[in-house]
């Protein structure tokens, strides 16, 4: 309690309590959190690398860490061990055993069978639980790794743009005057730039990697975050408590960070889920159109595009990705709805 500004104030606590009461929002939040955390450890569940290999009495944990060449296990190649094959070999020669993840495929490798061409239908035997895409890559793996990339991308994008948007929006609202005017004009002009087209143009000329892609998103995405914050700040800065802080001699930075931002955060928090699902959707759309992340990065958009072109012959591709996407977006929408309800000031009108 020494630093009270870092504890949750009761209003926030009350809002969180209220959010917890909104069942579907809260459960979606928990489910999504679990999914995100699990996806961070996808390598343990979905991977072509084994979890544990016992070879000649020694244990190996290939999941994280360096590539283990086939020669380590007495195989005749220097490149990365094919653990599925190794499993069979070891079973046959009795020199050890291999524990494979639940889905023993990575999101990149192509599994081709003799004489039949992918896409392969879902199968428990081959452990392609949702089948493969048209070059034999496991759909579960592509879905999960695609999800991980999409959600990390969206979180990074949303948090960074909100951070920039909040800082600039606050300064615009707080300082007002020429600073506000100039930035308003800049942002208005900036917002005229059709963001998705720019990404498409950049994407078609030079396929950016994750970081550059994120950077482009951020460069064009921050400006729209400023308006609400600016408006809120304008409102807040006219309130007496800001004047009180000024009268104490508080600096601009202090006023913004201690007084304005926490009050403005409310709107931001309610906007977050929608921004995140928006970011996932745009990323998916761009990937779908082929302007997104570099192939063969696993992505939902790419799966949708494959699924659509093969929906007659390989319905499992489209079905899987559309279901996954629907579930995730609906969950985020529930969270958003829950947060909005929980943070809705109307619900907390004090009776007079």
């Amino acid at each position, binding site marked *: 309690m020494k630093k009270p500004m870092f504890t949750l104030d009761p209003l926030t606590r*009350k809002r969180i309590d*209220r959010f917890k009461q909104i069942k579907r929002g809260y459960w979606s939040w928990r489910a999504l959190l679990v999914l995100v955390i699990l996806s961070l450890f996808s390598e343990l569940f979905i991977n072509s690398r084994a979890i544990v290999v016992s070879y000649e009495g020694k244990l190996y944990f290939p999941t994280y860490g360096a590539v283990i060449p086939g020669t380590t296990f007495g195989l005749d190649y220097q490149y990365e061990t094919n653990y599925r094959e190794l499993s069979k070999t070891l079973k046959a020669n009795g020199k050890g055993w291999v524990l494979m993840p639940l889905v023993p495929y990575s999101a990149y490798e192509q599994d081709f069978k003799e004489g039949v061409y992918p896409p392969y239908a879902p199968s428990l035997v081959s452990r392609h639980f949702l089948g493969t895409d048209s070059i034999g890559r496991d759909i579960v793996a592509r879905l999960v790794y695609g999800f991980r990339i999409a959600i990390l991308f969206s979180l990074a994008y949303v948090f960074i743009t909100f951070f920039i948007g909040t800082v600039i929006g606050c300064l615009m609202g707080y300082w007002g005057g020429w600073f506000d005017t100039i930035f308003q004009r800049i942002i208005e002009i900036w917002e005229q730039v059709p963001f998705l087209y720019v990404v498409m143009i950049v994407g078609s000329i030079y396929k950016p990697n994750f970081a550059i892609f994120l950077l482009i998103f951020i460069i064009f995405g921050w400006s729209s975050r400023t308006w609400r914050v600016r408006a809120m700040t304008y409102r807040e800065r006219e309130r007496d408590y800001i004047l009180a802080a000024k009268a104490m001699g508080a600096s601009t930075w202090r006023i913004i960070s201690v007084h304005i931002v926490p009050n403005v955060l409310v709107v931001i928090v309610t906007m977050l889920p929608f921004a995140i699902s928006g970011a996932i959707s745009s990323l998916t759309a761009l990937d779908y159109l082929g302007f997104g992340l570099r192939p063969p990065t696993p992505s939902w958009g790419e799966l949708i595009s494959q699924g659509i072109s093969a929906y007659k012959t390989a319905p499992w591709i489209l079905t899987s990705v559309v279901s996954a996407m629907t579930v995730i977006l609906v969950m985020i929408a529930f969270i958003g709805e829950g947060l909005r309800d929980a943070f809705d000031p109307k*619900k*907390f009108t004090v*009776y*007079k």
Partner: protein
Amino acid sequence: MDGKELLKVEGISVSFDTDLGPIEVVDDVSFEIKPGRTLALVGESGCGKSVTASSIMRLLPHPHGRVTRGRISFEGESVLDLPVEEMYRLRGGKISMIFQEPMTALNPVHTAGAQIAEVLDLHRADIAKKAREPEVLEMLKAVEMPSPESRMGNYPFQLSGGMRQRVMIAMALAGHPRLLIADEPTTALDVTVQAQILALIRDLQKKNGMGVLYITHDMGVVAEISDDVVVMYAGQIVETGAVLDVFKNPIHPYTKGLIRSMPLLDSVPKTELPTIHGQVPSPHNYPATCRFANRCPHADESCRANTPALEDFSPGRKVRCFKAGRV
């Protein structure tokens, strides 16, 4: 005027749903208003006076608030049982209301004239369309609007606070109401303007004989305008009576405190003011016993153990106090 009650409120209770469960914010409130008379409903914020007014208009926030008990009759008809269409005709017509903050009560995108004309359209079918504009002008003149011809075409933001309240009053009077409910209409105004508005309401009432329910927290305004007073505290009526009686001889300790705690113009500066100590309780923890007991200088054990009723004290006076007349 035949002395029949224009409005009769009989034992109404109002309950609100909150996050912490339902609370009763108005408890067993009764009063009546006769045509041509002004009743002041006085009390502090949260005492339930505005909710009482809203109940009469059936404007409680839906679905959180509702009247749980009691009866409200207007000109003999039970307001709470009227069909919704009838209510539309009543509101703004026979009963009209003015509010504390005229800026929020006026629609910012319509001119003052248009908003008054709308009331005419809704409640004064006898006026032909062509006659409306002169009628609006008449209304504005009636509320002593300065240069009414040009103000008619003004939007609310172009008017000063006093002018806006005049427009509100003009709108309220346009339907020729039998009852005017004024909910703190002058609280946001400057004293000089307040004086003008109070005088205006008094004059208008004299002219058309309507009943006025005047809601305020300012004992000064009560003294200025009302015929009868109902003092509310924590959702209950604590004292009623004719205005002269109540001010000359306040019975309830709360009423006494209210009247005495404000500095008078002839007080000695920088001397200690009489106070009511403690705070107004929140509706969530109204005590079951005397609700004023914990602030009352005269309260004793029995006050804290028993629940007082609103009892006749003298003709026309009712008081809710065990020690009425003894302290």
